[in-house]
């Protein structure tokens, strides 16, 4: 499992920029990012190499941050790649809260960040289904 930062953003001009600006100044490179939003607020989710330090600098700048766990899975970057993963979860009756994906540079691989309702059960199902579950080191060194 890998660590993910969740940042509370008020639906106000410039808040996301401010959060990313804080990270830039602290020289923290973002590995993966997604934004969930409603009409009133948003949740910015990030995977970064130094989650604890990132959390610290964000909190120092007044952001509300939670560090949680997600699963990162490598898939082949071609049609049906993601489907394979979802099939495994579906077969095991695992519900997904959310997922986001990104394509790796210079490699024929895409990475999917998954947050199942029950993260332990999800992880087990993926491993049993022979999915390419990535370690923290693998994700951070992308």
């Amino acid at each position, binding site marked *: 499992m890998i660590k993910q930062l969740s940042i509370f*953003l008020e639906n106000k001009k410039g808040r996301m920029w401010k959060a990313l600006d804080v990270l830039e100044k602290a020289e923290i490179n973002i590995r993966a990012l997604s934004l969930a939003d409603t009409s*009133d607020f948003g949740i910015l*989710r990030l995977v970064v190499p130094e989650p604890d330090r990132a959390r610290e600098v964000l909190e120092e700048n*007044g952001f*509300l941050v*939670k560090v949680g766990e997600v699963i990162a899975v490598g898939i082949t970057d071609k049609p049906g790649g993601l489907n394979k993963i979802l099939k495994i979860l579906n077969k095991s009756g695992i519900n997904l809260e959310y997922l986001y994906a990104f394509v790796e540079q210079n490699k024929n691989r895409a990475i999917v960040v998954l947050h199942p309702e029950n993260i332990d059960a999800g992880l087990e199902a993926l491993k049993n289904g022979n999915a390419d579950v990535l370690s923290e080191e693998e994700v951070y060194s992308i």
Partner: protein
Amino acid sequence: MIWNEEVECMADEDKRKLQLKRLQDVVKRAYENVPYYRKRFDETGISPEDIKTLKDIEKIPYTTKTDLRGAYPFGMFAVPRKEIVEVHTSSGTTGKPTVSGYTRGDLEIWSECMARGLTMAGVTDEDVIQNTHGYGLFTGGFGVHYGAQKIGATVIPISTGQSRRQMEIMRDFGTTFLVVTPSYGLYLAEEFMDDGMDLKDLKLKAIGFGAEGWTQEMREKLEEKFNAPAYNIYGLTEVMGPGVGIECAEQDGLHIFEDHFYPEIIDPQTLETLPDGEKGELVITTLTRKGMPLLRFRTKDITTLRRGKCKCGRTLVKMDRVTGRSDDMLKIRGVSIFPSQIEKALFKIDGLEPHYQIIVTRPEQLDELEIQVEASQELFSDEVKELVGITRKIEERVHSEIGLRVNVTLVEPRSLPRSEGKAVRVIDKRDL
């Protein structure tokens, strides 16, 4: 401890006799020396001689803030200006400020009332009082100061602001009694904790708070954060300043110093006097004030009066916590709402910080009520549905408290304005 047992524990009959004598005296002085009162009495067709019983006070017309403004600056003084040794004014946020003038004797009464009140809260000449109320035209700072001096406590006249300095002094000088407005107290606690200070290490024995509306939940937060009991101090500039009524150790209502003030409760709509135990607007007559006597001054504060001997031994009437102001009452879609009701509902939610703002709008014909609440580490969740669930839960709590649907918005921590005086809780954007 009781500062002045003779008057604070006076038998009802003796008290009423004293009050009647003083009422007749103040009415006479007001009539003879203040043109405003002479005119009002003559217009109403009454004379000071018509006051034969305490009940006769109901014949006297009310005095309002507008009347005081009309007499700006010194028109309400009942003595030559040279006998006035100090003046204070209201903040003037709702219009021209009202002026309050004090003779040397009036200041002595003020000191006495505050000394009684601080004694109720446990202050003695051994204590170190950190007075964060502003010193200046505002009565808060000086009122507390006079009472503390009368007792012989050590006063730190620090006023509001400079939270870092407040913290250093509180720790280094060994403050035992802190005087704050509730919102400033909570703000200080937050700042102190941010600086890594353990509030439990302080020598704080008790807190005196006043000058703005509060709820029981807010008191509990203040007590919890500072680990000390907190007592409410009530007063208003027009009548004197802090010290009109103060809570005793029972924390169940504020004793009004009836030898100096005669309280009544009226219905703010019909203006009829209400019996003890009924909720309405507090009206005060100053019984002993020489510089600026006030007859039946409408405070706009909503409360209830309760009589009977208190467990603390005092026989002084008690007023309940002020639950609102007859003028900060919001009319939303025709329903009367006090911000304190909303606050009460908010504080029932675990993990909610005491920082909120109420915004009233009227996008079409209907009033909309939005409540902005600061999200906290405890409330925040990584999942949208949970966050939405929390706002729904807050909306439901407020709905069941006030009977109206509201929209709750979570905002980022520290994004709502912090006050160093009276907190601005309501923003009414309606063009009424």
